[in-house]
């Protein structure tokens, strides 16, 4: 699939399989400044994962890939109402493309939930 594929509004999200760029809105804030709503490109999808019993220890083979950023660029905005001496710039990543890949703990906070 095209890694630059976007989740178009016509796609049925309940049936979507794969990993695509999707619009995401968050509140940018840091101490000493006002908050700002930002809409950007992030990643969302469903990647293939599996667990398979095997004869030898550890008795289960695991394949886990998650939908995450492939290529990114950094965007910068100016937060409003910053106190004197507080740097008003707020940087955040923008997804140019997304893919099913390993969650890289060097750049990413990897969370998983039941």
């Amino acid at each position: 699939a095209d890694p630059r594929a976007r989740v178009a509004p016509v796609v049925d999200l309940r049936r979507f399989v794969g990993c695509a760029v999707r619009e995401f809105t968050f509140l940018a804030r840091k101490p000493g400044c006002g908050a700002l709503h930002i809409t950007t490109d992030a990643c969302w999808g469903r990647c293939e994962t599996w667990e398979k019993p095997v004869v030898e220890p550890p008795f289960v083979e695991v394949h886990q890939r998650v939908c995450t950023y492939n290529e990114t660029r950094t965007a910068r905005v100016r937060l409003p109402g910053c106190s004197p001496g507080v740097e008003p710039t707020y940087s955040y990543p923008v997804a140019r493309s997304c893919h099913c890949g390993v969650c890289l703990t060097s750049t990413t906070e990897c969370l998983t939930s039941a």
Partner: protein
Amino acid sequence: YDGPVPGCHLYPFNVTIRSDRRGTCRGTHLVHACVGYCESSAFPSRYSVLAASNFTHNITSTSRCCTISKEAKVKVRLDCPRGRRHDDIEILTATECRCDMCRKSRY
């Protein structure tokens, strides 16, 4: 068949067990794995996450993975040449699957 569907499902496959490298005694059994497509996403980290990671984790990923939620043991009978006998070998098979926590140490 409409291609892959979301969710985490039982997937049958044949496993062949050999008693040694030469495969003197061998047996085959149908067992199940769990295979599927669970939701995951990645987005800009909150300021608290950024600060806690010394500004290295600018992305946060949340994910669930297709896991075996229930399993059973099955006995596989090995067939040997010239009427020799070999003890049955126990192996695991998945009986239920679920989108659940990814096993962090393995991904």
